């Protein structure tokens, strides 16, 4: 054994987590530096933050400036507005819908649930896809075959038609929808992508090094494979959020959900009352449609920018 002439500086236990926190922070900073070079990613993040602000602002407004009787997104009604729908005014910045409810309040109220839905389904997808992908890639054989055939089955029918049928015959709210979308994309396309990346990770020499170090299967999967699959999962998380918000909006637009208020439902209300193709009542159709488009695009933008952080091959010098 080497003679330890140099007195090593010990990093004690308490300092260790501080070190790790610092490392994490440093990693975050370098990744942010890469991310922030991408204007498209920044625009996406800006839009997400803007909608986040709307979501937070709604309960505050309801408790302060907006009287619940008038501004409640579901049951509100303004006596002072003679005809509904009414165009934008100072009292109702985006006008009122055919039932006399405030459009802006509906828009802001829904934002929170759209975020919740997106995050719920994305988290479910990522947890399933990463675990299943890592296990399938690592073990191969019968486990792999089972999950890959399952994935084939899941991607056999596109998301919207299967959701239409499911929603038509079952009462579906935001949470159910989030879970179903999460499960479908978790066991479907996302798993296939993560698994193929997992196969590339599996043959890296550091996996063999870990085995020679004495690491068992679970050690290798959770300390080596999953951390290297995480960035890709994160990227797909963004696309799942987009997919979830879009699907909810489509289903609500067709009137297939049990949701009280959402952007899709706002457009559905517009359609039910026959204001869809009228340009004078633009405030019924455009704000909600634009919100869906913008938020979906924002998550897509962030995903694209993350792609450049995650995949150095795409990086421009």
């Amino acid at each position, binding site marked *: 054994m080497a003679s330890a002439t140099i007195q090593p500086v010990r990093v004690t236990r308490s300092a260790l987590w501080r070190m790790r926190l610092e490392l994490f922070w440093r990693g975050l900073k370098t990744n942010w530096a890469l991310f922030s070079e991408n204007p498209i990613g920044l625009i996406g993040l800006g839009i997400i933050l803007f909608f986040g602000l709307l979501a937070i602002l709604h309960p505050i407004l309801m408790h302060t400036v907006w009287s619940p009787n008038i501004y409640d997104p579901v049951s509100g009604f303004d006596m002072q507005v003679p005809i509904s729908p009414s165009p934008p005014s100072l009292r109702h910045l985006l006008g009122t819908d055919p039932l006399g409810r405030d459009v802006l309040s509906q828009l802001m109220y829904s934002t929170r649930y759209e975020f919740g839905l997106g995050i719920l389904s994305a988290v479910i997808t990522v947890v399933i896809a990463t675990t299943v992908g890592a296990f399938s890639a690592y073990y191969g054989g019968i486990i792999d075959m089972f999950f890959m055939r399952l994935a084939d089955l899941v991607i056999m029918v596109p998301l919207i038609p299967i959701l239409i049928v499911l929603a038509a*015959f079952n009462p579906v709210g935001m949470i159910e929808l989030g879970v179903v979308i999460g499960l479908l994309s978790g066991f479907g396309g996302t798993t296939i992508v993560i698994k193929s990346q997992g196969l590339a990770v599996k043959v890296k020499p550091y996996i063999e090094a870990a085995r020679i170090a004495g690491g068992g299967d679970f050690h290798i999967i959770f300390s080596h494979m999953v951390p290297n699959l995480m960035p890709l999962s994160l990227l797909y998380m963004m696309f799942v959020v987009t997919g979830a918000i*879009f699907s909810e*909006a489509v289903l609500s637009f067709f009137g297939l959900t049990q949701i009280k208020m959402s952007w899709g439902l706002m457009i559905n209300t517009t359609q039910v009352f026959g204001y869809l193709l009228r340009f004078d009542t633009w405030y019924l159709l455009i704000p909600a449609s634009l919100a869906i488009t913008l938020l979906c695009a924002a998550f897509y933008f962030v995903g694209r920018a993350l792609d450049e952080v995650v995949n150095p091959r795409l990086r421009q010098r």
Partner: protein
Amino acid sequence: MWRYLGKRIFQMLITLLLFQAATYFLLDAQPGDIADLLTSNPKIPPSQRQVLRHELGLDKPFTTRLVAYIENFYRGDLGVSFNQYPRPVMDIILERLPRTLVLFLTANILAFWTGFVSGKILAWHRGGFIEYSSTIVGVTLYTVFTPWFALMMIWLFSVYLGWLPPGKFLDPVKWISAPAGITANKVFIGMIWAATAVLIITFIGFIISNYLPPKTRPAVRLGSFLVPAVLVLFNWWTSAAGPYAWDILRHLILPVLTVTLIAYGGTMLLTRTSMLETLREDYILTARAKGLPEKVIRDKHAARNALLPVWTSLVFALGASMSGGIITESIFSWPGIGLTLLNSALIGDIPLAMGALTMVGIITLISHLVVDVGYAFLDPRIRY
């Protein structure tokens, strides 16, 4: 190759079988029995109810019914629609399938071709205003809320400009006076055959032109398209069904355009990314070292290889386009499989909904197969 194809088709059938079992199970486990729905449907006369119950075998156990259902499916029998009783589901689906296929195929082929060509050119001219604006257009088309986009198309082309009808398959007022022999489906199928014939002749012309000297190529290619096209147009012009075909065609344009644009964004963006990656390859450097003209490097070397990942991603793109197609069909009241699925789901017509869903699944499965087999032709490294 044939062995691979056989294996794939066998796999497809297994997947289809599992899928049918899954959907049957899902719909069977609904709260509210099929029988309830059936008996509460006022369109079905009471005397028929017991017969129907027996016919549908609703008293038998689940597995027996599932096996019977799948057996009947392969005999071409999908049961009877509740809502349009006593019309068989297969009949309805066969009537509507061509309408969806025309929409789906035309739109996707157009979108793939235009998306690939424009994405390739965009990647070649990096930076500047054109790249930014076209990226924005691409992303907008890719992420836009489809129903809204369809509505805007209707608003622009039929409400504001008044050029095209806002929806539906045909104009009923015009068709009331149609001669006895002319029915919508007959005319439509005739149109499909005519278009297919033109396409096949053009395709053969293109292949033949590749063996001719370069100078005569454009003339042969143009001719092989124009001659059959003019002949077909002339034939319809003189035929009594001509005006009716024109009516269907006018109704077709807007939905096709909408689905095309929706599918275009994704292909364009993906081609651009794929091209940018291909351009980093060593063989592109080699091609430049060889002193080849830019256009040859772009089209022959870069784009040909960039095509491979774009083609593979079609598996997902076609799924998305199918979803977009269903939405578009319902907004335009285009009576295809998508609208059938939505309407039957909304009114609880379970046999029809299942039939339509199965059909959507089969279309997707076949497109996956086409993508896989096409890939084998595109990539010489793959030989089954």
